[in-house]
């Protein structure tokens, strides 16, 4: 599979402070790559280096196979677009005039301005200046900015910050649409993990300036701890059966227990019925992305 972005031992130091330490990550073509990490973990620094805004102190990155040490990297950057932290806009201009300048910068024909504003959900802002926009509207205008050059690789840093619930859904659907219909590769950072889990096909978990784990959504699916929540009339009757079967379990209450081992439901229900234990409900539970992240970076201290 072709890789859009590959970093190798990327390090960034600000004076004595090391913000990034040997970051090695790979973003495959067509992926929605979620950078997961708490505030200050180094997500934005990675994004800034990828976009060329910051110079790496050490290490290397390549975009479409071209190293950042190669002068051709600037040509590769024409294929990418980014919204880093707060959206960058011209505050004294209207949304249309903002986009018009961006079209001039890219040298493209500005015939799709209305279509673009419609796409990001701010079609009727008229002559209202961007400085009078709400944070959510600015965020949408920032996304529109990034779509002007019809990028192949879209980099978004916390794109749903400031958006209302409807806006979050709309941005999510927009990103999924761009990914599916235009095969756009997306690198997206967020600390709202549940939202990210609805989008991402690949994950990079960042903590203290390093990528602690990189995996696909399928790998994550397999890695997260699954359990079966069983509700019975009496867990005193349930426990001996589970112990006899040598299963890993935890009694939650007088009527509920969690079973972590793989089980054959039919056999278990049959055995419990024989001991007079009545099964009321059984529900499969998955550990959330949040819990998995916490287990990776070392628990609640890092929340």
């Amino acid at each position, binding site marked *: 599979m072709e890789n859009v972005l590959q970093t190798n031992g990327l390090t960034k130091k600000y004076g004595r402070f090391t913000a990034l330490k040997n970051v090695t990550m790979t973003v495959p073509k067509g992926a929605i790559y979620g950078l997961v990490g708490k505030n200050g973990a180094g997500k934005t620094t990675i994004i800034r280096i990828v976009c060329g805004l910051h110079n790496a102190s050490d290490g290397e990155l390549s975009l479409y196979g071209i190293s950042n040490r190669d002068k051709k990297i600037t040509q590769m950057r024409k294929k990418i677009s980014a919204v880093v932290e707060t959206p960058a806009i011209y505050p004294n201009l209207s949304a249309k005039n903002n986009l018009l300048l961006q079209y001039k*910068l890219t040298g493209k024909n500005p015939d799709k301005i209305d279509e673009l504003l419609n796409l990001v959900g701010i079609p009727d802002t008229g002559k209202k200046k961007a400085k009078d926009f709400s944070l959510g509207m600015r965020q949408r205008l920032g996304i529109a900015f990034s779509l002007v050059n019809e990028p192949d690789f879209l980099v978004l840093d916390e794109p749903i910050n400031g958006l209302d619930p409807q806006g979050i859904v709309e941005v999510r659907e927009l990103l999924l649409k761009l990914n599916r219909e235009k095969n756009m590769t997306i690198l997206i950072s967020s600390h709202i993990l549940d939202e990210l889990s609805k989008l991402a096909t690949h994950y990079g978990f960042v903590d203290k300036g390093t990528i602690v784990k990189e995996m696909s959504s399928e790998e994550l699916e397999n890695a997260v701890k699954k359990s079966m929540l069983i509700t019975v009339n009496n867990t005193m009757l349930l426990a001996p059966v589970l112990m006899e079967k040598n299963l890993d379990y935890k009694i939650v209450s007088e009527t509920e227990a969690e079973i972590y081992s793989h089980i054959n439901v039919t056999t278990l229900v049959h055995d419990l019925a024989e001991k007079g234990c009545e099964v009321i409900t059984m529900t499969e539970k998955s550990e959330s992305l949040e819990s998995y992240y916490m287990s990776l970076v070392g628990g609640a201290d890092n929340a």
Partner: protein
Amino acid sequence: MLNLLSEGFARLFKSKLLYVMLLIYFIFCFLEFAGIRTIIEYLPSSDYLLFSFHEIILLCVLIVAGKFVSSDFTNNTIRYKITGGYTRTQIYMSNWIISVFIGLFYLFVTQIFAMTVGFAMVGKGDFPSDEYPYYLMLSALVLIEHLSCILFMVTLMKKFSGAVFTYLFYIMSPFVASIIIIFSSNEQTVDLVEKFVEDFFPLFQSDILTSQADIPKYPHNILMPIYDAAVTIISIFGGIFVMKRSDIK
């Protein structure tokens, strides 16, 4: 690079500041002319009419060019240029070209205005003088040097305060020169420092241009263009170096 310039000029002409400063500038020019009219017979040269507001141009272009360049940093819109595949050298040079354009635009507008008013006041006789093209070239060089310094400082500080510091630097430099002069017993050193300050800093070069006293006499006619060219080149290379090494927010 052409796209960068196209975006830059579009942004410049959409900026209200360009026109507001031009209006303020015209008001200054008008007041200056009203004042000159009463003392016209005492002027060293009729060309005084054409260059008497050179110091005001410096201030106007400082505000317009400083704001133009710094807004790209403060609005973070410079990100789009970097992520859009332009090199930092291209970005710096496009800012330089637009800044110089701002300076030359103000100079051009002034000359048109001053010529029109000057003809009305002095008549066509010896106005402008034969030395006018030389004065004009020097004015342009002083402005280019001035704008190069502003661009360097704004790129260094990534804020409009960079432009303000440039002006403060001009103002503070004579004090530094005075301190050197006070503590220097050597007359040659004193003379050298005085000449350096006069010919080196745009504000003082502008003062010389305005007064029309020493140009094109030696050594100003030699030193000023040399200093202007040298400072312009050094500040461009310095600015590109700073730009390349900077981390952009």
